[in-house]
């Protein structure tokens, strides 16, 4: 069973800092990492490969540095990596991104056959979660989003059964293969890479494709040109009139706080009342 995992390199939003004066991002403060959800997708693919055979192919669209994110996937256990990288892809929103990735997957599908596509639930830089379903629609595959468990794969009958998270619990869904899953972090634990994987990853060079390496591409659907959404204005969020600052020594601050909370008598009633 050949499994393709679509992965993205993202800035680590946990450490990125905003300059409070200019309201701009200090990009140099943020190292680029493999989107955490995608790491779980690769791990799941490796797990499925160990059970059912085949190989794990990772694909990413991004600048040349994104090769590092692909290396990270090789550490987890991916067999091959492809990076589609071209100025013509730049500035893509989710619609144009899913188009470019679809064109690459179509080519890989023709060359080696793809039985399953995995994506992360979303990328932490934008949190949209739109690219996975977009790829699925273009490939004509059923998309199964928010997957928390792959219960079984029946390679003879080409069927997969997964658990999909919904607000009230989860659904058990069966779908024919090939299909596309987007995975939640709870689907697995990303394991520590074994040494041979680390060594292989350190030297690994992914295949790099430009637009010209893809077939039947409609240039108008790529990059900025192919993106229906554009960013209009950016502004700092509205400031309220500002807080009433409670000054003084710690003791004074505490007693004023108690006053504030006491004034809102209701609050203490909540506590004293039903206590549920």
């Amino acid at each position, binding site marked *: 069973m050949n499994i393709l995992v679509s992965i993205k390199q993202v*800035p680590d939003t*946990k450490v*990125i*800092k*905003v300059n*409070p004066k200019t*309201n701009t991002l200090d990009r140099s403060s*943020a190292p680029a990492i493999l989107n955490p959800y995608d790491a779980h997708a690769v791990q799941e693919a490796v797990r499925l490969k160990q059970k059912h055979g085949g190989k794990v192919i990772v694909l990413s669209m991004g600048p040349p540095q994104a090769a590092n994110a692909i290396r990270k996937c090789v550490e987890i256990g991916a067999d091959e990596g492809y990076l589609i990288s071209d100025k013509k892809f730049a500035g893509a929103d*989710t*619609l144009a991104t*899913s188009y470019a990735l679809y064109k690459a997957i179509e080519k890989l599908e023709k060359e080696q056959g793809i039985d399953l596509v995995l994506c992360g639930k979303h990328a932490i*830089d*934008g*949190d949209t*979660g*739109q690219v996975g*379903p*977009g790829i699925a*629609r273009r490939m004509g595959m*059923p*998309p199964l*989003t*928010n997957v928390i468990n792959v219960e079984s794969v029946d390679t003879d009958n080409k069927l997969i059964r997964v*658990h999909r998270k*919904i*607000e*009230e*619990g989860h*659904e*058990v*869904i*069966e*779908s024919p293969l090939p*299909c596309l899953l987007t995975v939640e972090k709870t689907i697995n634990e990303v394991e520590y890479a074994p040494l041979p994987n680390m060594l292989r990853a350190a030297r690994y060079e992914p295949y790099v494709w430009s637009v010209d390496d893809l077939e039947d591409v409609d240039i108008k659907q790529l990059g900025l040109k192919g993106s*229906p*959404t*554009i*960013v*209009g*204005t*950016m502004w*700092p*969020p509205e400031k*309220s009139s500002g*807080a*009433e*600052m*409670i000054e003084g020594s*710690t003791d004074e*601050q*505490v*007693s004023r*706080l108690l006053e*504030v909370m006491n004034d809102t008598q209701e*609050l*203490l009633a*909540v*506590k*004293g*009342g039903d206590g549920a």
Partner: protein
Amino acid sequence: MSIEEYKDVWVFIEQREGEIFDVGLELLGAGRELADKLEVNLCGVLLGNNVKNSAEDLYAYGADIVYVIDDPVLENYRTETYMKAVGDLVRKYKPEIFIYGATSNGKDLASAVATEVMTGLTADTTMLDINLEKRLFEASRPAFGGNIMATILCKKHRPQMATVRPKVMKKPEADFSRTGKIIEEGLGLKEEDLQTKIIDIVKSAKKSVNLEESDIIVTAGKGIKDEKGMAMVKELADTLNADLGASRDVVEAGLIGHAHQVGQTGVTVTPKLYIVIGVSGAVQHTVGMQNSDVIIAINNDPEAAIFNVAHYGIVADAFEIVPKLTAELKKALDKEGVTTNG
């Protein structure tokens, strides 16, 4: 495609077993304002099995027209069926704007429809408006990384689509004197023709916390540092009989479960009292709590952005003030307890 042909504001009305999710009603409230500005109809899109009876309830929340597809195949959400149903309606009736609740299924559907009809979609928006001069939908959301909001536009494609998280918009007062009309369509799909099958739906035991319903929330940010700080905040929360909230950084540090995360990728909360300790106030956090009745912020940095949304601010070291506050509250509540519990 001529974009002038596209009119009306649509809201996707999500339901399960005939029960309509609140987020759909909240979005009718937001959609009503957009439709009034544009002087067009506000329409609900209601799909399901035996849901037609609920359609008329939507007038009360602002809908002028409700598009209904009632079919056993639509009993439970599946991308395959819902995407076809919504895609057909969009192609036939051409809405100018289409908003969806950012639930698991709402996001899934909106993403699929965006590709199906080839248009733009903005995820997790927190503010919606119209630029009347250019007749453009302005969908705004916190942008990447920090204290910035961005307005996303979709100039040349229709419908202009966005998802909005539950509780971000206010559910309007119901006005049962309002009337409207129902337009019913068919689906044209049979269960046998479908690829995906729902084998089972497993409802999990009630969530351990449901911050959306809490009256008092005490939230810990990265300023509380570690388990010890967390225990300190928990003691304050317990004293107040409050629920515990957390910033994303605290959740990612493994100090508490994701169900406690407040903000853009957590829950949106509206308690009577929100005490927030050691949270810097990034917009992704504040969009989830800024509508709380009373917000008290404790932070040792006088410049922290959290003070912009708080009603009361205290510049202090959490490790110094929180234990004292807890102790004093215990005293006060003991006295209080005699009168209120007696």
